[in-house]
C-alpha cells in the first residue's frame, strides 16, 4: 500500500508553490512521506522536493480578501475548486491531504495511517488566541451542521471514498442550491463547507469503522496573526484579539499549526 501527502498549490497573485516548498521540507522531516504537488502553471521542481508534480487546469475563479496581520489586506484570486478531485489526482493508496499553510512540527499525523479507517478528518480545533469568539468554526452557520476543516484529511482509495468524493463534487457543482439549503449567506464556494455538508450527508458525522476523527485538535492562527519565529519544532506568533489592537505573543512546540497568514510564512522562511 503506497502512502503519501498531496498538496494543492495553485498560484495566483500569491505564490502557493513557494508555500508548498516550505511545507514539503517539514513534511519530509517529521512524517518521512513522499509528497505530490498539484499546480496550475509550469512549475519546475528544481530542488527535487516532490515525488510527483501534477498540472491541472483551473478555469473557475473566485476572489477573496486575505489579511497580512492587523494592518494590511489584499484582494486576490482564489482557485479552490480542485480539492474535491483529490481522490482522482492522488497517486497513493493512502493519502494525507494538507493545505500548504498547515505547517508540520511533529510526527503526530503519522497515526492516520495506523488507525485502519477509510476517511479521517479533524473533529475539533483550537485557536492559539484565547480571546476570540470563532463560533464560525464550530458549525457552518448558526444552528446548523457541524463544521469540518478541509485543511487536513486522510483517505484510502476505496469504493466508499470514491462515492464520497463524487458527492463532494456534486455539492460543489450545485453550490447555490446547498447554500440555500443550509442557509449559507456567503455565496463563495468553500471546501470546508462542501466537505462538512458531504460528511453530514454521507457519514452522518458518526464515527464508524470507515469514518473517524484525526486524534487531537487542529491548532490554528488566523490571518490577522503573525508568525514571528520558527525552528524545526517550535513556532512563535503574535496573535490578535477582539478586545483591543494589542498583539499577544504565544508559542507552541511539537504541535502542527494551521498558519493562515500566508504572507508571514513567506516572510519568516525567506529571512
Amino acid at each position, binding site marked *: 500500500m503506497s502512502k503519501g501527502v498531496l498538496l494543492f498549490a495553485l498560484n495566483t497573485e500569491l505564490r502557493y508553490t513557494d508555500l508548498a516548498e516550505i511545507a514539503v521540507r517539514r513534511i519530509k522531516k517529521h512524517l518521512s512521506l513522499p509528497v505530490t504537488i498539484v499546480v496550475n502553471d509550469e512549475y519546475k521542481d528544481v530542488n527535487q522536493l516532490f515525488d510527483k508534480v501534477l498540472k491541472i487546469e483551473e478555469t473557475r475563479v473566485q476572489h477573496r480578501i486575505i489579511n497580512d496581520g492587523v494592518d494590511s489586506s489584499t484582494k486576490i484570486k482564489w482557485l479552490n475548486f480542485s480539492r474535491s478531485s483529490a481522490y482522482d489526482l492522488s497517486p497513493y493508496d493512502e493519502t494525507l491531504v494538507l493545505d500548504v499553510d498547515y505547517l508540520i512540527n511533529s510526527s503526530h499525523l503519522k497515526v492516520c495511517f*495506523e*488507525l485502519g479507517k477509510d476517511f479521517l478528518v479533524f473533529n475539533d480545533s483550537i485557536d492559539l488566541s*484565547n480571546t476570540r469568539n470563532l463560533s464560525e468554526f464550530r458549525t457552518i452557520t448558526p444552528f446548523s451542521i457541524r463544521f469540518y476543516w478541509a485543511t487536513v484529511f486522510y483517505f484510502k482509495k476505496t469504493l466508499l471514498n470514491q462515492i464520497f468524493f463524487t458527492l463532494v463534487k456534486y455539492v460543489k457543482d450545485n453550490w447555490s442550491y446547498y447554500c440555500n439549503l443550509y442557509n449559507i449567506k456567503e455565496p463563495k464556494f468553500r471546501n470546508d463547507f462542501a466537505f462538512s455538508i458531504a460528511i453530514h450527508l454521507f457519514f452522518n458525522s458518526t464515527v464508524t469503522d470507515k469514518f473517524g476523527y484525526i*486524534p*487531537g485538535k487542529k491548532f490554528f492562527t488566523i490571518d490577522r496573526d503573525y508568525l514571528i519565529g520558527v525552528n524545526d519544532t517550535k513556532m512563535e506568533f503574535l496573535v490578535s484579539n477582539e478586545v483591543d489592537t494589542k498583539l499577544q505573543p504565544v508559542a507552541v512546540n511539537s504541535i502542527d499549526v494551521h498558519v493562515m497568514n500566508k504572507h508571514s510564512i513567506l516572510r519568516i522562511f525567506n529571512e
Partner: protein
Amino acid sequence: MEAKIEKAFEIASLMATLNSQKRLLEEEFEQTLLYYYNGGVFKATEQRLAFLASIKSKDVESIVLLDDNKTPILVENIDSFFNDLFSHYTEATNHYYYQHKKITSSKTVESIIENV
C-alpha cells in the same frame, strides 16, 4: 504613581501571556496523552489506568475495550497494554510538569515564550 501604573500593566501583560501559554500547554498535554493501539485511540487517563489495574488481578489475559471513539478493540495482553499505557501516562505528565514549571517560573514575557 506613574511607575506603579507602568508596573501594573507590565504584570497584567505577563499574566495574560502566562495564562495563554498555560492553556496551550494543557492542550498539548491532552494530545500527548493519546495512545494508539491496534487501530484504537486510548487516552491515558487515571480512570482507564485504574480500571486496567483492577482487571489485571482477575487472571484474564485478553479483554475487549472501548476506545475513545467507542470502537471495540481487542487487547490481547492486558499486562503489556497496561504497562505501555502507564509509561505513556508518566512520560506525558512528567513532560507537562517540567514545561509547566518552566513557564510559571518565568519572570518576563520573553522568557515565557523562550521556555516553551
